């Protein structure tokens, strides 16, 4: 039997924690990570942004190459990822060998085409394992 709940506001029992959703595409992973040697937005080299969620650890595996291990793995590799990096004329892309528990991203300088250590910003939607 289907049911409809009519409300204006939903909160977790404690009033502040996020509410779990099913059968909806919420953002499942949100990452900000600074690989740049300079401190950016108060975040030093090889440190994650405070608003990052569902990421347990990070690995610097090469110039511009970041591996993000997830706290809660995704259900498969067919997730959708969108991202950004800091200016100017730089590019962040998704490595083709990510797995459900580790998201791999790469940053390049679009001017020179060279790999570049910079800020990785991305979020992922899909399904959790």
């Amino acid at each position, binding site marked *: 039997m*289907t*049911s*409809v*709940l*009519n*409300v*204006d*506001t*939903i*909160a*977790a*029992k404690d*009033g*502040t924690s*996020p*509410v779990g*959703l099913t059968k*909806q*595409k*919420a*953002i499942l992973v949100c990452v900000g990570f600074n690989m740049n040697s300079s401190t950016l937005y108060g975040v030093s080299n090889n440190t994650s942004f405070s608003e990052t969620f569902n990421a347990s650890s990070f690995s610097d595996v090469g110039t511009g190459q970041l591996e993000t291990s997830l706290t809660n793995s995704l259900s*498969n*590799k*067919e*997730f*959708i*990822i*969108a*991202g*950004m990096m800091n200016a100017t004329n730089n*590019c*962040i*892309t*998704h*490595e*083709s060998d*990510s797995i459900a528990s580790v998201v791999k*991203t*790469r940053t*390049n300088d*679009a001017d020179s*085409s060279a*790999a570049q250590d910079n800020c990785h910003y*991305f*979020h992922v*939607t*899909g*399904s959790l394992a």
Partner: protein
Amino acid sequence: MASELKVDKITGVTTAGSIDVTTGSTTINLQSALPSAVFGMNLNSTTYAGVAVNELPSNTLNIASGVDGGLGLARGNYTTNMAGLENVYPDGAIAANNTQNVDIGVTTTALLATQQHDADSSSDQNSYGFTLVFGDLA
């Protein structure tokens, strides 16, 4: 005591499509924080993450079908149309140094049109890219 609410559908009372959720000491609109469409399409002849050429990944949302519109032109027909065109479209693409952008001149409320480029050469290319759409549904 922890609690779990089990329902199939939730609707706002004041406005059917508007529900606020508490986060910290304030509230945000739930629908605004969720993408209305999630699109991915592989135009490349190589299979990536199990997604073959001209296929869509299993995690798309509100996309009825994908269309290969030409070199680097990945397009998705919405299942439910968008209310307008003033949406927000974050994008992504596979490595390295590639981009996918919304093709704003072709996109309509029924069609999400994107372009895939190689940033090294600035040329169009067939790649595997992703786009989210944040905005109101029709």
